[in-house]
């Protein structure tokens, strides 16, 4: 496990991947683009979890596996742990990261100063576009979590809640 790659390289690769899928491959069908990006994340998460659980014994229950994702797995990927973990003890977990690394540099247009009414709709679509692209970028980490958990034997569905950037919460729902 000695090989390293530059972080800027990975960041730029992520940006280009999302941009390629959204603007070139599936420009008319954003749901398909999202699904492809999530599938790529699934593969990556699958393989990464294989690598990072090499020395460890099997996990005794779902909570242990989720705690592994929050602490060791996230630390290997992003050099920090998940900041907050909540559960309803019935198969739903919320992993909250207060400063998700791939979102720290995203910033939107500051609102224009002109009060032209006809420009109002374009200002709105710029913000909508920003929200859309942000959610596209988050499909990849959702896929990673889903891939890692399914490799540990826990099939689940992962979605993300972005009410306040750069904090984001991943909601993991384990299939009974």
């Amino acid at each position, binding site marked *: 496990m000695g090989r390293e790659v530059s972080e*800027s390289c990975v960041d730029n690769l992520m*940006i280009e991947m*999302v941009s390629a899928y959204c603007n070139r491959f599936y420009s008319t069908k954003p749901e398909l683009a999202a699904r492809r990006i999530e599938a790529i994340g699934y593969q990556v998460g699958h393989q990464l979890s294989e690598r990072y659980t090499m020395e460890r014994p099997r996990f005794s229950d779902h909570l242990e596996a989720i705690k592994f994702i929050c602490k060791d797995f996230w630390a290997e990927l992003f050099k920090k742990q998940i900041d907050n973990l909540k559960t309803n003890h019935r198969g739903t977990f919320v992993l909250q990261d207060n400063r998700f690394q791939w979102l720290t*540099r995203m*910033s*939107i*247009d500051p609102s224009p100063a002109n009060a032209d009414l006809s420009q109002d709709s374009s200002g709105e679509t710029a913000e909508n576009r920003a929200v859309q*692209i942000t959610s596209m*970028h988050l499909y990849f980490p959702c896929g990673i979590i889903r891939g890692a958990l399914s490799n540990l034997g826990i099939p689940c569905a992962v979605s993300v809640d972005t009410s306040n950037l750069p904090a984001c919460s991943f909601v993991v729902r384990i299939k009974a």
Partner: protein
Amino acid sequence: MQFFGGSEISPAPSAPTGSGNNAHMMYIFNRNGVCLLYREWNRPLRTLNAQQDHKLMFGLLFSLKSFTAKMDPTSVEKGNLGVPQLPGQGCSFHSFRTNTYKLSFMESPSGIKIILVTHPKTGDLQEPLKYVYNLYVEYVVKNPLYVPGTPIRCDLFNTALDQYARSLA
């Protein structure tokens, strides 16, 4: 002789205060002359409209760079004029100073030109300009929502830049 006294005719501006409004304005251009960013913090006099102002600034710096390279008495060979060079290589123009302001300039190897206009008593600004270039890379180049070659509209970059400009002595 009174002619060279000058203190009654054009009084020098007040010394930079610690409150940090030392920086007057900043321009960032890319290799093709597109003005990526223009920020002003303190500019009472505006003689041209924005377009002409940017074109004049870019043209001036292009000519100055070319002039300084041509008139370099120490260079051994004629370098490739007009091409951005690595820092330290060739002859690079740094700043000019008048009695009311100082204009500092830095060009990166990718052709990004950063211009900062400050109070005349400011020291050498090459390190601060390098820091601004770092901010540009972090918050603009790595921003997924930014399209290269277009004017910069990134909130995080503007905030970081304002904060840094205020801290310049």
